[in-house]
């Protein structure tokens, strides 16, 4: 990597580069590549921050780290490794979270440029706000498998990271999970719920038994009551908690098996309306299953241990695995102190065995093809493999965008998408013009304002703080006052001042329909005005709704750019990664918009993305021909058929659809297939 340091750049730019002070947020997959590119391009004042320590699973792509570094601070080791081949660089490493209040607006103001190399949305939101507050240009990036993206954010000039609503992780409708699974992911989610019901924290939203209130079953109330009564008489389905019941049987695997895969299924079959247009499930009988031969595992050599995970076993083997894992887990649970529960972890072999077995048995019951432990692990753990070369390409693009900013040519900056295969216009790397700020953005507008619908008699101050302000609006330490003319303080970020309010309802403070709250985050220098709408008819389990921000149901109008799903690689919902879950680094959880979509594995990602785009374009669920306009040159219209395998591969059509997220998307005629 002996690229000349001064040769390629014009002297003015070379000087700007050597004098620039840059902040790299994250020293992981993208961060390592980025640091190397920065010093080789001639940057010499580099600050790098990462809260993580090095895990052995990082070593296959984070090339600044070696085995001897495992357990040490990423930012510190990255600095040391870079100094080995570029001793003259001036690198300052922080082993810390960028969300720490020490890194305030003043801290950000010292930089010429901030570059994100992050793996989670919470930190991305935060850095976005800090850069807006400090008015420092930010280069945002992300990768997911073979896909990647780089974009530039500049206050008042471009969209900010939060200008377009980002889809939140989708939970599946309860009745799909409990009554009518149609895809493997539904069974995997059910199995994870079941784990929690039996061994973990019980959660009323994670019920696994048949849902008698399924609106689709649409019984007469009287009939329903009769059925409920009948089933109680059977003694099979009682309204006691699943855990209590399981305990009372001493976690007897055969009894559990019989309840879950025979009695509950038989019960579902009595809800005959569900099965008029669906293939009905087939109950499993333990004794019948035991008559089957067991799979004989390949024992040819040692390496088959890896391959074994990729084999799909038969029903008998999964029944045995179920039984074995129930026994192991109940022992683990018994070892715990009273009241403590197990936590599901894809890397705990018995927990993973349990989910593999239970999910597969349910898939079999519902007539789906079973899946290997490997596949289930990747779906259950939301794993998309991180690919080193994708990070390398994206890190290169980040520096190129940085050079444009340093030359004062921010108008030439682009959002650049990396595709897996070239799109129909032969582009593998697709530059797209940056969008101007969304005037209604609740972050970067001059007076950010938002309307939230909730039930003031039900929502507590704590819910407002944790779920609405922190989780939804990504504040770190909010202060809230009621705009009631008196300026009543509802929440204070100072410890010990307003904790007494936590469990009181909003209505206790005179908050009602039309009330306005002012929420401030001092650190982010961010003030948000919240208009409250009182509503008693929110859907079950929905605590609040942000008006105009329900991408699942209301897509933007076709003339607007569809909501941009930054393939922010690695958007694992809201939680920053920690060293305890390192292989989730560079992992994406893509939500699914549609009942029938899994949110997890890579292929599922493309589907959910497609569906979203279809909705975003206002021609829901339809394949279509479309035109796209990019900068000055005009483009080709590609029409896709349902089976357009020959010329347009899956990847191409995906990348093509991804283009819709970009500016200038336009639907020209929709051809519906369903």
């Amino acid at each position: 990597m002996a690229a000349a340091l001064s040769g390629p750049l014009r002297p003015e730019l070379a000087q700007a580069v050597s004098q620039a002070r840059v902040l790299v947020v994250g020293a992981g997959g993208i961060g390592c590549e980025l640091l190397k590119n920065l010093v080789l391009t001639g940057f010499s004042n580099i600050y790098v921050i990462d809260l993580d320590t090095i895990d052995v699973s990082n070593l296959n792509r984070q090339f600044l780290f070696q085995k001897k570094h495992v357990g040490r601070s990423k930012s510190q080791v990255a600095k040391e490794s870079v100094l080995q081949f570029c001793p003259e660089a001036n690198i300052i490493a922080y082993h810390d979270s960028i969300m720490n209040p020490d890194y305030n607006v003043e801290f950000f103001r010292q930089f010429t440029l901030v570059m994100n190399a992050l793996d989670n949305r919470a930190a991305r939101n935060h850095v976005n706000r800090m850069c807006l507050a400090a008015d420092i240009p930010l280069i945002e990036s992300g990768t997911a498998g073979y896909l990647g993206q780089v974009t530039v954010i500049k206050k008042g000039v471009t969209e900010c990271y939060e200008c377009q609503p980002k889809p939140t992780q989708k939970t599946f409708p309860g009745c799909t999970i409990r009554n009518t699974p149609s895809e493997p992911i539904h069974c995997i989610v059910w199995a994870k719920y079941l784990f929690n019901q039996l061994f973990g924290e019980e959660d009323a939203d994670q019920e696994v038994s048949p849902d008698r209130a399924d609106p689709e079953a649409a019984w007469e109330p009287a009939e329903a009551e009769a059925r409920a009564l009948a089933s109680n008489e059977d003694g099979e389905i009682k309204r006691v908690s699943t855990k209590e019941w399981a305990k009372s049987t001493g976690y007897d695997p055969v009894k559990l098996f019989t309840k879950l895969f025979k009695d509950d299924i038989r019960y579902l079959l009595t809800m005959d309306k569900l099965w008029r247009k669906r293939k009905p499930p087939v109950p499993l009988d333990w004794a019948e299953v035991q008559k089957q031969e067991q799979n004989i595992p390949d024992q040819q050599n040692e390496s088959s241990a890896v391959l074994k995970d990729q084999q799909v076993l038969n029903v008998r083997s999964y029944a045995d695995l179920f039984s074995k894992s129930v026994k192991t887990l109940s022992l683990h649970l018994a070892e715990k102190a009273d009241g403590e529960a197990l936590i599901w972890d894809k890397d705990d072999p018995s927990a993973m065995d349990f989910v593999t077995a239970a999910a597969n048995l349910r898939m079999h019951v519902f007539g789906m093809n079973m899946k290997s432990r490997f596949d289930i692990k990747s779906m259950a753990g939301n794993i998309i493999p991180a690919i080193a070369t994708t990070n390398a390409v994206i890190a290169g693009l980040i520096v190129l965008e940085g050079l444009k900013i340093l030359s004062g040519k921010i108008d030439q900056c682009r959002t650049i998408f990396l595709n897996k295969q070239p799109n129909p216009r032969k582009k593998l790397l697709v530059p797209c013009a940056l969008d101007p700020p969304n005037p209604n953005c609740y972050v970067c507008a001059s007076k950010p304002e938002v309307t939230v619908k909730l039930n003031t008699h039900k929502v507590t101050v704590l819910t407002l703080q944790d779920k609405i302000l922190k989780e939804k609006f990504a504040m770190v330490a909010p202060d809230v006052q009621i705009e009631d003319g008196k300026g009543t303080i509802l929440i204070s970020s100072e410890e010990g001042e307003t904790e007494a309010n936590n469990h009181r309802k909003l209505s206790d403070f005179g908050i009602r329909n039309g009330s306005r709250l002012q929420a401030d985050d001092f650190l982010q220098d961010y003030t948000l005005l919240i208009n409250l709408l009182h509503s008693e008819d929110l859907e079950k389990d929905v605590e609040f709704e942000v008006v105009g921000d329900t991408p699942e149901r209301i897509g933007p109008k076709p003339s607007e750019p569809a909501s941009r799903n930054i393939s922010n690689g690695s958007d694992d919902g809201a939680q920053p990664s920690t060293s305890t879950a390192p292989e989730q680094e560079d992992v994406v959880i893509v939500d699914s918009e549609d009942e029938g979509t899994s949110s997890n594995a890579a292929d599922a990602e493309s589907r959910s993305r497609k569906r979203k785009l279809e909705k975003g374009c206002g021609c829901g669920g339809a394949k279509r021909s479309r035109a796209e306009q990019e900068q000055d040159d005009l483009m080709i219209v590609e029409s896709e058929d349902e089976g357009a395998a020959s010329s347009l591969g899956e990847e191409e059509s995906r990348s093509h659809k991804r283009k819709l997220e970009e500016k200038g998307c336009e639907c020209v005629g929709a051809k519906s297939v369903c």
Partner: protein
Amino acid sequence: MRGLGAEVAKNLILAGVRGLTLLDHQQVRGGTPGGTVGTQGPPEPVCLNPMVEVKARRGRGGQTDPVPQCPQVCLTCCSKESMVRINQICHKNGIKFFTGDVFGYHGYMFADLGQHEFVEEKPKVAKVSAGVEDGPEAKRARLEPAETTMVKKQLQFCPLREALAVRWRGEEAAPALRRTAPDYFLLHVLLQFRTEAGRDPCPRGDSDSDNDSDNVPVSVLLHSCFSEMAPVCAVVGGVLGQEVVKALSQRDPPHNNFFFFDGVRGQGMVERLGPPPK
């Protein structure tokens, strides 16, 4: 072994190829003096992945002819003549051939995989039995979109000589001329310069730009094609590295046959140039 070569080597070592031989005849410039380029680089290549056998050799590509011993060959910053010659040897011996270069903001990759077989993962097309009166909901429920199947495919590549010998005169070539990435023609100019001057253009050689300005189609290119820019090496090296891995693993369609990257526009194009496929 320069910026691009080092990037590709790093990516291949991280990907875990079994063995990698680095070949170069030059001394390190600007870095630690004494070693060959192959043994330098951040950090020592062997540290990246102890499972990969990395050998560094001194010498010119093709001279000692180590080429036929390797199943894949990847060249960087070679003259057009050596690239064409080594490609011919590889093409004859069924060796997968790659080459690439970075000139300032511009970079390219070329692949000649000969007759290349690979598998591609395709979603299974769900058969919907006709005549069954199913609601769309039930139809969708039965479809299992996560199901995929592996499809075997083949691609025929052409040698570099043919890819560089495409004729652009004549009316039938005009539409193709408009659609082709300008970087292809820039590559011709730069390779020609390399052959004639025995080096790459450099910004301090004032005469370089003057002499060539008649040849270069767009004058703005002049200011963006000097030296190897590290971020451009990262982009081209990433794509090239991934292509080598793809060819080795025979999974997923390879880029046939050029990849051009324009760092000024941030655009990457895949072009198939050469005689029309048979």
